[in-house]
């Protein structure tokens, strides 16, 4: 109660009240309506719908392609973040700004462009298809679209963390006899790993729900290249509102779990620096002291 009497600034009640009412009306009430609608079905029936042949295949495609896309971005995103922070090269500011393109470019534009590029007669498709890879209108196309859409996440979560690494630690490791690779594997990588995982999780979470960019390049064949968001829409168009609701509620539950995981990861990243090992310990570890 002491805090209440010491409050000098005005507007707390109004600001918090407005925030809560607006949040409740726009976000919580509609999501609550979805859950209420799903409860008409009951838990067993929801699971039944989600595990139907077509739905199960869609979940497998959605989560499999999202995982692959997030993994591709974790690998290349680490390299991109590293060169953007550490290496000088001409046009760096332009490249840095361009990384955010997938956030700014509408997903439908990305979808039709990627489909055109990777089609059999497209700029990339005409080189890739003779090699035996069909990208457009296959599950591989879904991975390509999701890789594009989620490209900035890993880069943007890693950049500030790499900037924060103090070069003294690397110098100490080197002076204790660590090779550059050992320094990377034992000092740098452990320091950036939580951020890498956060970026991966953010990319994965975004990819799972993506719709606009995927439908143009996927081919959308049931059981093969149909994603869950598309299946929800096609159920809706066949007036199977309950079926769509069941799938949506499962997606929502999985999104919640992912959001929770991202929050835990971010907390881990933020708290990591507090109990960092003393400089000498990290350096000694890198120089092979652990063996």
């Amino acid at each position, binding site marked *: 109660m002491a805090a209440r009497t010491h*409050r000098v*600034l*005005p*507007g*707390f009640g109004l*600001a918090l009240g*407005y*925030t*809560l009412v607006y*949040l409740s009306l726009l*976000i919580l009430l*509609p*999501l609550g*309506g*979805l859950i209420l609608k799903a409860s008409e079905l009951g838990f067993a029936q929801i699971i039944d719908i989600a595990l139907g042949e077509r739905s199960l295949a869609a979940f497998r495609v959605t989560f499999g392609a999202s995982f692959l896309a997030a993994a591709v971005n974790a690998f*290349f995103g680490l*390299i991109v973040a*590293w*060169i*953007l922070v*550490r*290496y000088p090269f001409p046009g760096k500011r332009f*490249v840095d*700004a*361009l*990384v*955010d393109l*997938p*956030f*700014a*470019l*509408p*997903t*439908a*534009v*990305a979808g*039709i462009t990627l489909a*055109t*590029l990777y089609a059999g007669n497209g*700029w*990339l498709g005409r080189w890739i298809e003779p090699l035996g890879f069909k990208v457009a209108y296959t599950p591989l196309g879904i991975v390509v679209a999701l890789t594009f859409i989620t*490209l900035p996440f890993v880069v943007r979560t890693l950049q500030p963390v790499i900037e924060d690494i103090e070069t003294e630690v690397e*110098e100490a490791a*080197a002076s204790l006899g660590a090779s*550059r690779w050992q320094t990377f594997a034992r000092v740098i990588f452990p320091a950036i790993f939580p951020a890498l995982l956060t970026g991966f999780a953010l990319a994965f*979470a*975004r990819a799972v*729900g*993506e719709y*606009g960019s995927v439908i*143009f390049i996927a081919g959308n064949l049931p059981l093969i290249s149909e994603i*869950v968001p598309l299946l*929800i829409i096609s159920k809706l168009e066949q007036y199977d*509102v309950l079926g769509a*609701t069941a799938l*949506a509620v499962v997606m*929502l539950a999985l*999104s919640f779990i992912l*959001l929770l995981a991202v*929050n835990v990861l971010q907390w881990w990243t933020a708290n990591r620096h507090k109990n960092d090992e003393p400089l000498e310990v990290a350096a000694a570890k890198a120089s092979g002291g652990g063996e």
Partner: protein
Amino acid sequence: MKSNRATQEPRWVRYGLLTVGLGFLFFFLGLPLVAVFVEALAQGVPLYLEALKEPETRSAIGLTIGIALAVLPFNIVFGVAAAWAIAKFDFKGKSVLITLIDLPFAVSPVVAGLVFILLFGAQGWFGPWLSAHEVKIIFAVPGMILATLFITFPFIARELIPLMQAQGKDEEEAAVSLGASGWQMFRRVTLPNIKWGLLYGVILSNARAMGEFGAVSVVSGHIRGETNTLPLHVEILYNEYNAVGAFAAASILALLALVTLVAKTVVEWRMKRETEMLNAVLAPEKT
């Protein structure tokens, strides 16, 4: 240059990483961006301009701008209010509230559209009442505005909360104790402090509002000339094998994305400069 050797990779590794990283960005970002404009102009400039003059394309542009403008004030008011409460005061359940604000980021756009159909659609909770009063929300513009509001909900608040937390509340407390009214304090102290952060959030949420596809697609009903935004119009033209028309419309959206990126970079630069100036002023003098 000895210290350099210790903290830098061998030359071949550096060039290798640069090649792989920039090559990846070239194939995944550069090429698609160029392709939009090449495809739009594939049949020549006159046909491109012709495609842009189509009445349906023009009405789609109008609707896209209209929805973005309608959404903007809601997002600004909510963003500022939420950031004010969260950054300047302590209360129970604050971290839960922050997580809830992030919620729309985790929800699939398709699900975001579906929830409004369940509320306001013909068989939805409020459907019978709405149709009795001849109010149309689903398959009409109000539903598209609602879906866009849902999708763009977190953007401005997310930018302002960390910014206002970092700024603390000393300046506002000083203003109030010197006798400023709440409105005076906000206009003279808070707003100048947060203007770049606010603009940054506006840029991001606006880009999303104009480009949103999935959520708007579910509630729009795809009525040509009435409920077609530019991204939805791109889909229709593309599915009709009208490549020039589709990419012409897409090129406007791509230009918009480029403008967004430039504006975002400029604002980022301004924010960085202001923090640096602030730090220079606040830093204790070292002798």
